[in-house]
Protein backbone atom coordinates (compact mmCIF):
# COMPACT_ATOMS: atom_id res chain seq x y z
CA UNK A 1 0.00 0.00 0.00
CA UNK A 2 1.31 3.44 -0.91
CA UNK A 3 1.04 6.15 1.74
CA UNK A 4 -0.41 9.21 0.11
CA UNK A 5 0.83 11.98 2.39
CA UNK A 6 4.47 11.20 1.66
CA UNK A 7 3.74 11.42 -2.08
CA UNK A 8 2.17 14.83 -1.58
CA UNK A 9 5.18 16.10 0.32
CA UNK A 10 8.10 13.77 -0.32
CA UNK A 11 10.70 16.40 0.56
CA UNK A 12 9.45 17.05 4.08
CA UNK A 13 12.23 17.36 6.63
CA UNK A 14 10.43 15.00 8.98
CA UNK A 15 10.28 12.28 6.31
CA UNK A 16 14.02 12.67 5.75
CA UNK A 17 14.65 12.40 9.48
CA UNK A 18 12.51 9.29 9.84
CA UNK A 19 13.82 7.47 6.80
CA UNK A 20 17.52 8.03 7.47
CA UNK A 21 18.11 6.67 10.96
CA UNK A 22 21.64 5.52 10.16
CA UNK A 23 22.57 9.09 9.35
CA UNK A 24 20.59 10.88 12.05
CA UNK A 25 20.85 8.56 15.03
CA UNK A 26 24.58 9.04 15.70
CA UNK A 27 24.10 12.80 15.78
CA UNK A 28 21.01 12.47 17.96
CA UNK A 29 22.83 10.19 20.39
CA UNK A 30 25.92 12.43 20.55
CA UNK A 31 23.81 15.50 21.13
CA UNK A 32 21.62 13.77 23.70
CA UNK A 33 24.70 12.54 25.57
CA UNK A 34 26.17 16.03 25.57
CA UNK A 35 22.91 17.33 27.02
CA UNK A 36 23.03 14.65 29.72
CA UNK A 37 26.64 15.51 30.47
CA UNK A 38 26.04 19.25 30.70
CA UNK A 39 22.86 18.98 32.76
CA UNK A 40 24.51 16.42 35.03
CA UNK A 41 27.60 18.54 35.65
CA UNK A 42 25.61 21.71 36.25
CA UNK A 43 23.19 19.97 38.61
CA UNK A 44 25.97 18.42 40.66
CA UNK A 45 28.01 21.63 40.81
CA UNK A 46 24.92 23.64 41.70
CA UNK A 47 24.07 21.18 44.42
CA UNK A 48 27.10 22.54 46.27
CA UNK A 49 25.71 26.02 46.71
CA UNK A 50 22.19 24.68 47.14
CA UNK A 51 23.54 22.50 49.92
CA UNK A 52 25.20 25.45 51.62
CA UNK A 53 22.13 27.66 51.30
CA UNK A 54 19.82 24.89 52.48
CA UNK A 55 22.03 23.79 55.37
CA UNK A 56 22.49 27.27 56.67
CA UNK A 57 19.02 28.34 55.55
CA UNK A 58 18.11 29.28 59.13
CA UNK A 59 20.08 32.43 58.42
CA UNK A 60 17.10 33.63 56.39
CA UNK A 61 15.26 34.06 59.69
CA UNK A 62 18.05 34.99 62.03
CA UNK A 63 21.28 36.92 62.02
CA UNK A 64 24.04 36.32 64.53
CA UNK A 65 26.62 38.79 65.81
CA UNK A 66 29.86 37.41 67.25
CA UNK A 67 32.66 39.32 68.98
CA UNK A 68 36.14 39.63 67.50
CA UNK A 69 39.22 39.01 69.64
CA UNK A 70 36.96 37.74 72.44
CA UNK A 71 34.85 34.72 73.32
CA UNK A 72 32.12 36.60 75.13
CA UNK A 73 29.84 39.41 74.04
CA UNK A 74 30.71 42.72 75.67
CA UNK A 75 27.98 44.97 77.02
CA UNK A 76 29.02 47.70 74.57
CA UNK A 77 28.50 45.34 71.63
CA UNK A 78 25.10 44.26 72.94
CA UNK A 79 23.91 47.81 73.34
CA UNK A 80 25.35 48.78 69.94
CA UNK A 81 23.36 46.00 68.27
CA UNK A 82 20.19 46.87 70.17
CA UNK A 83 20.63 50.51 69.21
CA UNK A 84 21.01 49.55 65.56
CA UNK A 85 17.95 47.29 65.46
CA UNK A 86 15.70 48.38 68.34
CA UNK A 87 12.65 46.46 67.09
CA UNK A 88 14.33 43.10 66.69
CA UNK A 89 14.42 40.43 69.36
CA UNK A 90 17.92 39.48 70.55
CA UNK A 91 19.11 36.55 72.65
CA UNK A 92 22.32 34.67 73.37
CA UNK A 93 23.39 31.67 71.35
CA UNK A 94 26.32 29.44 72.30
CA UNK A 95 27.25 26.96 69.61
CA UNK A 96 28.51 23.41 69.78
CA UNK A 97 29.52 21.99 66.40
CA UNK A 98 28.73 18.85 64.52
CA UNK A 99 29.97 17.91 61.06
CA UNK A 100 27.54 16.96 58.30
CA UNK A 101 28.36 15.17 55.06
CA UNK A 102 28.11 16.99 51.75
CA UNK A 103 29.16 16.08 48.20
CA UNK A 104 32.24 18.24 48.71
CA UNK A 105 33.27 16.91 52.14
CA UNK A 106 32.24 17.61 55.71
CA UNK A 107 30.82 20.94 56.76
CA UNK A 108 30.44 22.23 60.35
CA UNK A 109 26.90 22.80 61.53
CA UNK A 110 26.05 24.66 64.73
CA UNK A 111 24.07 23.05 67.51
CA UNK A 112 22.73 26.18 69.13
CA UNK A 113 22.75 26.35 72.88
CA UNK A 114 19.72 28.56 73.59
CA UNK A 115 17.70 29.27 76.69
CA UNK A 116 14.28 27.61 76.99
CA UNK A 117 12.17 30.72 76.21
CA UNK A 118 14.44 31.79 73.33
CA UNK A 119 14.43 28.31 71.81
CA UNK A 120 10.65 28.40 71.40
CA UNK A 121 10.87 31.75 69.72
CA UNK A 122 13.72 30.60 67.48
CA UNK A 123 11.83 27.48 66.39
CA UNK A 124 8.74 29.51 65.65
CA UNK A 125 10.65 32.15 63.70
CA UNK A 126 12.19 29.41 61.55
CA UNK A 127 8.88 27.56 61.16
CA UNK A 128 10.35 24.48 62.79
CA UNK A 129 8.46 22.16 65.11
CA UNK A 130 9.14 18.99 67.06
CA UNK A 131 8.02 15.76 65.34
CA UNK A 132 9.40 13.00 67.55
CA UNK A 133 10.85 12.91 71.07
CA UNK A 134 11.16 16.10 73.08
CA UNK A 135 13.18 19.26 73.40
CA UNK A 136 16.47 19.09 75.40
CA UNK A 137 16.02 19.49 79.13
CA UNK A 138 17.62 22.41 80.93
CA UNK A 139 21.30 21.69 81.69
CA UNK A 140 21.13 18.17 80.20
CA UNK A 141 23.54 16.74 77.58
CA UNK A 142 20.74 16.54 75.03
CA UNK A 143 20.13 17.67 71.49
CA UNK A 144 17.11 18.11 69.22
CA UNK A 145 17.81 18.39 65.50
CA UNK A 146 16.12 18.44 62.12
CA UNK A 147 15.31 15.06 60.60
CA UNK A 148 17.52 15.92 57.63
CA UNK A 149 20.58 16.32 59.86
CA UNK A 150 19.79 13.13 61.75
CA UNK A 151 19.49 11.29 58.44
CA UNK A 152 22.69 12.84 57.18
CA UNK A 153 24.52 11.77 60.37
CA UNK A 154 22.66 8.47 60.39
CA UNK A 155 21.27 9.01 63.89
CA UNK A 156 18.15 7.77 65.66
CA UNK A 157 16.57 9.02 68.84
CA UNK A 158 18.79 8.05 71.76
CA UNK A 159 21.98 7.93 69.67
CA UNK A 160 25.07 9.88 70.72
CA UNK A 161 25.46 13.03 68.59
CA UNK A 162 28.60 14.49 70.12
CA UNK A 163 31.14 12.36 71.88
CA UNK A 164 34.40 12.96 73.82
CA UNK A 165 36.17 10.32 71.69
CA UNK A 166 35.07 11.76 68.35
CA UNK A 167 37.25 14.02 66.23
CA UNK A 168 34.51 15.48 64.08
CA UNK A 169 31.73 15.63 66.62
CA UNK A 170 33.30 16.47 69.92
CA UNK A 171 31.78 17.26 73.28
CA UNK A 172 33.30 16.96 76.75
CA UNK A 173 30.61 14.45 77.62
CA UNK A 174 28.33 12.40 75.32
CA UNK A 175 25.31 14.32 74.07
CA UNK A 176 22.23 12.36 73.01
CA UNK A 177 19.60 12.93 70.36
CA UNK A 178 16.28 13.36 72.18
CA UNK A 179 14.08 14.99 69.59
CA UNK A 180 13.73 15.48 65.86
CA UNK A 181 12.45 18.61 64.17
CA UNK A 182 10.72 19.35 60.92
CA UNK A 183 10.51 22.61 59.02
CA UNK A 184 11.74 24.51 55.97
CA UNK A 185 15.27 24.88 57.34
CA UNK A 186 17.80 22.80 59.24
CA UNK A 187 18.11 23.52 62.95
CA UNK A 188 19.82 21.86 65.91
CA UNK A 189 19.44 23.03 69.48
CA UNK A 190 20.79 22.15 72.90
CA UNK A 191 20.41 23.51 76.42
CA UNK A 192 22.13 26.91 76.82
CA UNK A 193 23.24 26.07 80.34
CA UNK A 194 24.90 22.80 79.30
CA UNK A 195 26.74 24.29 76.34
CA UNK A 196 27.90 27.30 78.36
CA UNK A 197 29.37 25.04 81.04
CA UNK A 198 30.92 22.33 78.85
CA UNK A 199 32.15 24.33 75.85
CA UNK A 200 34.36 26.95 77.53
CA UNK A 201 36.06 28.09 74.32
CA UNK A 202 32.92 28.46 72.19
CA UNK A 203 32.45 31.98 70.85
CA UNK A 204 29.18 33.34 72.16
CA UNK A 205 26.86 34.97 69.71
CA UNK A 206 23.93 37.34 69.82
CA UNK A 207 20.99 36.16 67.71
CA UNK A 208 18.92 38.92 66.11
CA UNK A 209 15.47 38.06 64.82
CA UNK A 210 13.22 40.51 63.03
CA UNK A 211 9.45 40.53 62.79
CA UNK A 212 9.47 38.97 59.34
CA UNK A 213 11.78 37.55 56.70
CA UNK A 214 11.43 40.92 55.01
CA UNK A 215 12.62 42.93 58.00
CA UNK A 216 15.39 40.36 58.52
CA UNK A 217 16.87 41.50 55.17
CA UNK A 218 17.11 45.11 56.35
CA UNK A 219 18.53 43.96 59.69
CA UNK A 220 21.17 42.05 57.72
CA UNK A 221 22.14 45.16 55.79
CA UNK A 222 22.37 47.27 58.93
CA UNK A 223 24.45 44.75 60.85
CA UNK A 224 26.71 44.08 57.88
CA UNK A 225 27.34 47.75 57.15
CA UNK A 226 27.17 49.51 60.49
CA UNK A 227 28.96 47.24 62.93
CA UNK A 228 32.63 47.96 63.54
CA UNK A 229 34.35 45.06 61.78
CA UNK A 230 37.27 45.12 64.23
CA UNK A 231 35.09 44.27 67.20
CA UNK A 232 32.22 42.30 65.73
CA UNK A 233 31.23 40.10 62.88
CA UNK A 234 27.68 39.74 61.54
CA UNK A 235 26.62 36.34 60.21
CA UNK A 236 23.71 37.02 57.89
CA UNK A 237 21.97 35.36 54.96
CA UNK A 238 23.42 38.13 52.83
CA UNK A 239 27.02 37.34 53.80
CA UNK A 240 26.31 33.61 53.53
CA UNK A 241 25.15 33.98 49.94
CA UNK A 242 28.04 36.31 49.12
CA UNK A 243 30.68 34.07 50.68
CA UNK A 244 29.24 30.96 49.05
CA UNK A 245 29.19 32.58 45.63
CA UNK A 246 32.75 33.82 46.15
CA UNK A 247 33.99 30.46 47.30
CA UNK A 248 32.35 28.71 44.37
CA UNK A 249 33.11 31.28 41.71
CA UNK A 250 36.10 29.42 40.30
CA UNK A 251 34.10 26.19 40.35
CA UNK A 252 31.36 27.92 38.37
CA UNK A 253 33.89 29.35 35.96
CA UNK A 254 35.33 25.89 35.38
CA UNK A 255 31.84 24.54 34.91
CA UNK A 256 31.05 27.16 32.28
CA UNK A 257 34.31 26.45 30.46
CA UNK A 258 33.45 22.75 30.42
CA UNK A 259 29.95 23.45 29.13
CA UNK A 260 31.37 25.61 26.34
CA UNK A 261 33.97 22.95 25.46
CA UNK A 262 31.31 20.26 25.29
CA UNK A 263 29.02 22.44 23.19
CA UNK A 264 31.79 23.40 20.78
CA UNK A 265 33.12 19.84 20.51
CA UNK A 266 29.73 18.38 19.74
CA UNK A 267 28.98 21.25 17.37
CA UNK A 268 32.28 20.83 15.52
CA UNK A 269 31.76 17.08 15.17
CA UNK A 270 28.18 17.57 14.05
CA UNK A 271 29.29 20.30 11.65
CA UNK A 272 31.84 17.92 10.15
CA UNK A 273 29.25 15.16 9.94
CA UNK A 274 26.84 17.58 8.30
CA UNK A 275 29.57 18.36 5.76
CA UNK A 276 30.13 14.66 5.08
CA UNK A 277 26.41 14.02 4.80
CA UNK A 278 26.11 16.96 2.45
CA UNK A 279 28.82 15.42 0.27
CA UNK A 280 26.84 12.19 0.20
CA UNK A 281 23.72 14.13 -0.73
CA UNK A 282 25.29 16.28 -3.46
CA UNK A 283 23.47 14.28 -6.10
CA UNK A 284 20.17 14.82 -4.33
CA UNK A 285 20.65 18.59 -4.02
CA UNK A 286 22.00 19.01 -7.55
CA UNK A 287 19.10 17.01 -9.00
CA UNK A 288 16.56 19.04 -7.04
CA UNK A 289 18.13 22.30 -8.21
CA UNK A 290 18.22 21.05 -11.80
CA UNK A 291 14.56 20.07 -11.81
CA UNK A 292 13.56 23.45 -10.52
CA UNK A 293 13.73 23.69 -6.73
CA UNK A 294 15.13 26.98 -5.49
CA UNK A 295 18.13 27.29 -3.19
CA UNK A 296 15.80 28.92 -0.72
CA UNK A 297 13.55 25.88 -0.70
CA UNK A 298 16.53 23.59 -0.13
CA UNK A 299 17.85 25.80 2.65
CA UNK A 300 14.47 25.85 4.36
CA UNK A 301 14.36 22.10 4.12
CA UNK A 302 17.84 21.80 5.65
CA UNK A 303 16.92 24.19 8.45
CA UNK A 304 13.90 21.97 9.10
CA UNK A 305 16.04 18.84 9.15
CA UNK A 306 18.55 20.35 11.57
CA UNK A 307 15.79 21.77 13.77
CA UNK A 308 14.11 18.37 14.01
CA UNK A 309 17.44 16.75 14.82
CA UNK A 310 18.15 19.27 17.57
CA UNK A 311 14.69 19.18 19.10
CA UNK A 312 14.50 15.38 19.11
CA UNK A 313 18.01 15.00 20.52
CA UNK A 314 17.55 17.72 23.11
CA UNK A 315 14.25 16.25 24.30
CA UNK A 316 15.77 12.80 24.46
CA UNK A 317 18.74 14.19 26.39
CA UNK A 318 16.44 15.94 28.85
CA UNK A 319 14.38 12.80 29.44
CA UNK A 320 17.50 10.74 30.08
CA UNK A 321 18.91 13.46 32.35
CA UNK A 322 15.76 13.78 34.42
CA UNK A 323 15.57 10.00 34.83
CA UNK A 324 19.26 9.78 35.69
CA UNK A 325 19.22 12.64 38.19
CA UNK A 326 16.05 11.40 39.86
CA UNK A 327 17.75 8.03 40.22
CA UNK A 328 20.90 9.64 41.55
CA UNK A 329 18.94 11.77 44.01
CA UNK A 330 16.76 8.90 45.18
CA UNK A 331 19.23 6.02 45.39
CA UNK A 332 22.58 7.70 45.96
CA UNK A 333 22.15 11.11 47.49
CA UNK A 334 19.01 10.90 49.61
CA UNK A 335 20.02 7.78 51.59
CA UNK A 336 23.22 9.62 52.49
CA UNK A 337 21.33 12.76 53.52
CA UNK A 338 22.80 14.70 50.61
CA UNK A 339 20.98 17.32 48.64
CA UNK A 340 20.43 17.19 44.87
CA UNK A 341 17.60 18.84 43.00
CA UNK A 342 16.96 16.79 39.83
CA UNK A 343 14.78 19.54 38.41
CA UNK A 344 17.21 22.41 38.95
CA UNK A 345 16.13 24.82 36.16
CA UNK A 346 19.57 26.34 35.51
CA UNK A 347 20.93 22.89 34.68
CA UNK A 348 18.49 22.59 31.81
CA UNK A 349 19.10 26.16 30.66
CA UNK A 350 22.81 25.40 30.44
CA UNK A 351 22.09 22.59 27.95
CA UNK A 352 20.58 25.03 25.43
CA UNK A 353 23.91 26.13 23.96
CA UNK A 354 24.60 22.53 22.89
CA UNK A 355 21.80 22.10 20.32
CA UNK A 356 22.13 25.76 19.41
CA UNK A 357 25.85 25.50 18.61
CA UNK A 358 25.25 22.24 16.78
CA UNK A 359 22.47 23.78 14.73
CA UNK A 360 24.48 26.85 13.81
CA UNK A 361 27.63 24.89 12.88
CA UNK A 362 25.72 22.38 10.78
CA UNK A 363 23.70 25.06 9.08
CA UNK A 364 26.74 27.21 8.28
CA UNK A 365 28.60 24.20 6.87
CA UNK A 366 25.72 23.08 4.69
CA UNK A 367 24.74 26.60 3.57
CA UNK A 368 28.27 27.38 2.45
CA UNK A 369 28.51 24.17 0.48
CA UNK A 370 25.07 24.59 -1.01
CA UNK A 371 26.00 28.06 -2.27
CA UNK A 372 29.23 26.77 -3.78
CA UNK A 373 27.52 23.82 -5.42
CA UNK A 374 27.29 23.87 -9.22
CA UNK A 375 24.35 21.62 -9.98
CA UNK A 376 25.30 21.01 -13.60
CA UNK A 377 28.85 19.91 -12.89
CA UNK A 378 27.65 17.60 -10.12
CA UNK A 379 25.18 16.00 -12.51
CA UNK A 380 27.70 15.72 -15.37
CA UNK A 381 30.38 14.27 -13.10
CA UNK A 382 28.18 11.46 -11.91
Amino acid sequence: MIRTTSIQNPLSAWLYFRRNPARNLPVVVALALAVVLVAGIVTIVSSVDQTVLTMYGYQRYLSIVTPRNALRLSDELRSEVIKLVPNARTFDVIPAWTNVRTVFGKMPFPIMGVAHQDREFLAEACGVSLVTGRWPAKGAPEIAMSEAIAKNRDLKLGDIVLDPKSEDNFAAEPMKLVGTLRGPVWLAVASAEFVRDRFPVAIHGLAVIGASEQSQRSIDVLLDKQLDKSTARAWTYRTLVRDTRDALSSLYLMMRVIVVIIAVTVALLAGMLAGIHFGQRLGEFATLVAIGYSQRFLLRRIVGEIAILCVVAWTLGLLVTVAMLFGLAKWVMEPRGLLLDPMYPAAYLYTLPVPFALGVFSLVTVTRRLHKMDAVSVIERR
Partner: protein
Amino acid sequence: MTLPSVSPAIEFAEVSLRYGEGMRTSVALDSVALSMKPRSFVGILGPSGSGKSSLLYLASGLKQPSAGEVRVAGRELAKLSAAEMVALRRSMFGIVFQQPYLLHYLSAAENIGVGLPQREMNAAEKVGELALRLGIDSLLHKLPHELSGGERQRVCIARAVIGSPPILLADEPTAALDHANGHEVMNLLVSCREFATVMVVTHDPEMLEGADMVVRMRDGRVEDVSVSQ
Protein backbone atom coordinates in the same frame (compact mmCIF):
# COMPACT_ATOMS: atom_id res chain seq x y z
CA MET B 1 0.86 25.39 -18.92
CA THR B 2 0.61 24.90 -22.67
CA LEU B 3 2.56 26.48 -25.43
CA PRO B 4 1.06 28.45 -28.27
CA SER B 5 1.41 26.09 -31.20
CA VAL B 6 2.70 28.67 -33.65
CA SER B 7 5.80 30.19 -32.06
CA PRO B 8 8.78 27.89 -31.53
CA ALA B 9 9.00 26.13 -28.18
CA ILE B 10 12.77 26.47 -27.98
CA GLU B 11 14.85 28.78 -30.08
CA PHE B 12 18.62 29.21 -30.29
CA ALA B 13 19.73 32.41 -32.02
CA GLU B 14 23.46 32.49 -32.84
CA VAL B 15 24.23 30.91 -29.51
CA SER B 16 27.84 30.40 -28.44
CA LEU B 17 29.20 28.88 -25.28
CA ARG B 18 32.83 29.20 -24.27
CA TYR B 19 34.67 27.85 -21.28
CA GLY B 20 37.72 29.48 -19.76
CA GLU B 21 39.53 32.64 -20.86
CA GLY B 22 42.36 33.76 -23.12
CA MET B 23 44.62 31.02 -24.46
CA ARG B 24 42.73 28.31 -22.66
CA THR B 25 39.32 29.14 -24.06
CA SER B 26 37.44 26.13 -25.35
CA VAL B 27 34.40 26.56 -27.48
CA ALA B 28 31.55 24.22 -26.59
CA LEU B 29 29.03 25.80 -28.94
CA ASP B 30 29.67 28.09 -31.85
CA SER B 31 26.86 30.21 -33.36
CA VAL B 32 24.17 27.64 -33.07
CA ALA B 33 20.82 28.55 -34.61
CA LEU B 34 17.95 26.15 -34.05
CA SER B 35 14.20 26.35 -33.76
CA MET B 36 12.03 23.61 -32.30
CA LYS B 37 8.32 23.38 -32.86
CA PRO B 38 5.91 22.74 -30.00
CA ARG B 39 5.03 19.06 -29.52
CA SER B 40 7.85 17.90 -31.72
CA PHE B 41 10.32 15.16 -30.94
CA VAL B 42 13.83 16.46 -31.52
CA GLY B 43 16.88 14.24 -31.44
CA ILE B 44 20.37 15.63 -30.95
CA LEU B 45 23.13 13.43 -32.34
CA GLY B 46 26.87 13.83 -32.37
CA PRO B 47 30.19 12.48 -31.18
CA SER B 48 31.46 12.99 -27.70
CA GLY B 49 32.40 16.59 -26.95
CA SER B 50 30.38 17.99 -29.83
CA GLY B 51 28.23 20.14 -27.54
CA LYS B 52 25.06 18.08 -27.20
CA SER B 53 24.75 18.38 -23.43
CA SER B 54 25.66 22.05 -23.60
CA LEU B 55 22.72 22.63 -25.89
CA LEU B 56 20.40 20.98 -23.42
CA TYR B 57 21.69 22.85 -20.39
CA LEU B 58 21.36 26.15 -22.25
CA ALA B 59 17.77 25.32 -23.17
CA SER B 60 16.90 24.68 -19.54
CA GLY B 61 18.71 27.77 -18.28
CA LEU B 62 21.11 25.69 -16.18
CA LYS B 63 23.92 27.30 -18.21
CA GLN B 64 24.04 30.75 -19.74
CA PRO B 65 25.29 31.40 -23.27
CA SER B 66 28.46 33.45 -23.85
CA ALA B 67 26.78 35.04 -26.84
CA GLY B 68 23.42 34.85 -28.59
CA GLU B 69 19.95 34.29 -27.24
CA VAL B 70 18.07 31.29 -25.96
CA ARG B 71 14.30 31.73 -26.05
CA VAL B 72 11.75 29.43 -24.48
CA ALA B 73 8.13 30.01 -25.50
CA GLY B 74 9.22 33.35 -26.81
CA ARG B 75 10.89 34.52 -23.59
CA GLU B 76 14.58 35.21 -23.56
CA LEU B 77 16.11 33.25 -20.68
CA ALA B 78 18.95 35.74 -20.02
CA LYS B 79 16.36 38.41 -19.20
CA LEU B 80 14.75 36.37 -16.41
CA SER B 81 15.62 36.90 -12.76
CA ALA B 82 16.96 33.97 -10.77
CA ALA B 83 13.56 33.49 -9.13
CA GLU B 84 11.75 33.65 -12.48
CA MET B 85 14.21 31.15 -13.88
CA VAL B 86 13.54 28.73 -11.03
CA ALA B 87 9.79 29.16 -11.47
CA LEU B 88 10.09 28.65 -15.22
CA ARG B 89 12.16 25.51 -14.78
CA ARG B 90 9.64 24.19 -12.30
CA SER B 91 6.61 24.82 -14.49
CA MET B 92 7.88 24.41 -18.05
CA PHE B 93 10.61 21.79 -17.98
CA GLY B 94 10.91 18.16 -17.25
CA ILE B 95 14.52 17.06 -17.27
CA VAL B 96 15.95 13.55 -17.48
CA PHE B 97 19.65 13.00 -16.99
CA GLN B 98 22.01 10.33 -18.21
CA GLN B 99 22.36 8.87 -14.72
CA PRO B 100 18.94 8.14 -13.29
CA TYR B 101 19.31 9.81 -9.90
CA LEU B 102 16.56 9.16 -7.37
CA LEU B 103 16.40 10.09 -3.68
CA HIS B 104 17.54 6.87 -2.07
CA TYR B 105 15.20 6.97 0.90
CA LEU B 106 12.04 7.65 -1.09
CA SER B 107 9.92 5.04 -2.81
CA ALA B 108 9.46 5.25 -6.57
CA ALA B 109 6.04 6.83 -6.03
CA GLU B 110 7.47 9.45 -3.68
CA ASN B 111 10.33 10.16 -6.07
CA ILE B 112 7.81 10.77 -8.83
CA GLY B 113 5.94 13.10 -6.45
CA VAL B 114 9.12 15.20 -6.14
CA GLY B 115 8.52 16.28 -9.75
CA LEU B 116 5.17 17.92 -9.07
CA PRO B 117 5.56 21.70 -9.37
CA GLN B 118 3.46 22.26 -6.28
CA ARG B 119 1.86 20.28 -3.52
CA GLU B 120 -1.36 18.66 -4.64
CA MET B 121 -4.05 16.88 -2.68
CA ASN B 122 -4.48 14.22 -5.35
CA ALA B 123 -0.75 13.67 -5.86
CA ALA B 124 -1.05 9.96 -5.13
CA GLU B 125 -3.78 9.42 -7.75
CA LYS B 126 -1.82 11.41 -10.30
CA VAL B 127 1.28 9.32 -9.66
CA GLY B 128 -0.79 6.14 -9.84
CA GLU B 129 -2.37 7.08 -13.17
CA LEU B 130 0.91 8.13 -14.71
CA ALA B 131 2.65 4.99 -13.51
CA LEU B 132 -0.07 2.89 -15.08
CA ARG B 133 0.41 4.69 -18.38
CA LEU B 134 4.18 4.26 -18.21
CA GLY B 135 3.86 0.65 -17.14
CA ILE B 136 5.70 1.11 -13.88
CA ASP B 137 2.74 0.77 -11.52
CA SER B 138 4.17 -2.40 -10.00
CA LEU B 139 7.33 -0.54 -8.99
CA LEU B 140 5.76 2.31 -7.06
CA HIS B 141 6.39 0.99 -3.57
CA LYS B 142 10.01 0.01 -4.26
CA LEU B 143 13.05 1.92 -3.10
CA PRO B 144 15.59 2.99 -5.75
CA HIS B 145 18.10 0.29 -4.80
CA GLU B 146 15.44 -2.32 -5.49
CA LEU B 147 15.06 -1.10 -9.09
CA SER B 148 17.07 -1.97 -12.20
CA GLY B 149 18.80 0.79 -14.18
CA GLY B 150 16.06 0.80 -16.79
CA GLU B 151 13.35 0.90 -14.16
CA ARG B 152 15.08 3.77 -12.43
CA GLN B 153 15.32 5.69 -15.68
CA ARG B 154 11.61 5.16 -16.24
CA VAL B 155 10.87 6.48 -12.76
CA CYS B 156 13.03 9.51 -13.59
CA ILE B 157 11.00 10.08 -16.74
CA ALA B 158 7.81 9.81 -14.70
CA ARG B 159 9.25 12.39 -12.27
CA ALA B 160 10.02 14.67 -15.21
CA VAL B 161 6.57 14.40 -16.80
CA ILE B 162 4.29 14.21 -13.74
CA GLY B 163 3.73 17.97 -13.91
CA SER B 164 2.87 17.72 -17.64
CA PRO B 165 5.65 20.13 -18.59
CA PRO B 166 5.41 21.59 -22.10
CA ILE B 167 9.10 20.87 -22.61
CA LEU B 168 10.88 17.63 -21.86
CA LEU B 169 14.67 17.48 -22.01
CA ALA B 170 16.66 14.26 -21.80
CA ASP B 171 20.46 13.92 -21.87
CA GLU B 172 21.47 10.45 -23.03
CA PRO B 173 18.70 8.78 -21.04
CA THR B 174 19.51 5.41 -22.60
CA ALA B 175 23.30 5.49 -22.26
CA ALA B 176 23.34 3.43 -19.09
CA LEU B 177 20.83 0.91 -20.41
CA ASP B 178 20.97 -2.21 -22.56
CA HIS B 179 19.42 -2.21 -25.99
CA ALA B 180 15.96 -3.49 -25.04
CA ASN B 181 15.61 -1.21 -22.05
CA GLY B 182 16.95 1.68 -24.11
CA HIS B 183 14.27 1.18 -26.70
CA GLU B 184 11.52 1.04 -24.14
CA VAL B 185 12.68 4.24 -22.51
CA MET B 186 12.92 5.90 -25.91
CA ASN B 187 9.39 4.83 -26.83
CA LEU B 188 8.22 6.35 -23.60
CA LEU B 189 9.84 9.66 -24.49
CA VAL B 190 8.35 9.56 -27.99
CA SER B 191 4.91 9.09 -26.44
CA CYS B 192 5.42 12.28 -24.43
CA ARG B 193 5.13 14.19 -27.71
CA GLU B 194 1.39 14.16 -26.98
CA PHE B 195 1.81 17.02 -24.55
CA ALA B 196 5.38 18.23 -24.80
CA THR B 197 8.23 19.31 -26.97
CA VAL B 198 10.75 16.55 -26.42
CA MET B 199 14.47 17.15 -26.91
CA VAL B 200 16.62 14.06 -26.55
CA VAL B 201 20.40 13.84 -26.70
CA THR B 202 21.86 10.55 -27.84
CA HIS B 203 24.78 9.22 -29.83
CA ASP B 204 22.79 6.29 -31.18
CA PRO B 205 20.94 7.29 -34.40
CA GLU B 206 18.93 4.12 -34.20
CA MET B 207 17.14 5.49 -31.17
CA LEU B 208 15.75 8.41 -33.17
CA GLU B 209 13.63 6.57 -35.73
CA GLY B 210 10.39 8.37 -34.97
CA ALA B 211 11.90 11.81 -34.49
CA ASP B 212 10.38 14.91 -36.10
CA MET B 213 13.74 16.55 -36.30
CA VAL B 214 17.28 15.28 -35.95
CA VAL B 215 20.13 17.70 -35.26
CA ARG B 216 23.69 16.50 -35.90
CA MET B 217 26.35 18.30 -33.94
CA ARG B 218 30.10 18.39 -34.55
CA ASP B 219 32.70 20.48 -32.74
CA GLY B 220 30.11 22.80 -31.28
CA ARG B 221 28.40 23.51 -34.57
CA VAL B 222 25.20 22.28 -36.14
CA GLU B 223 26.40 20.03 -38.92
CA ASP B 224 23.05 19.00 -40.27
CA VAL B 225 19.35 19.28 -39.49
CA SER B 226 16.90 16.80 -40.95
CA VAL B 227 13.20 17.29 -40.60
CA SER B 228 10.79 14.44 -41.30
CA GLN B 229 7.46 15.16 -42.96
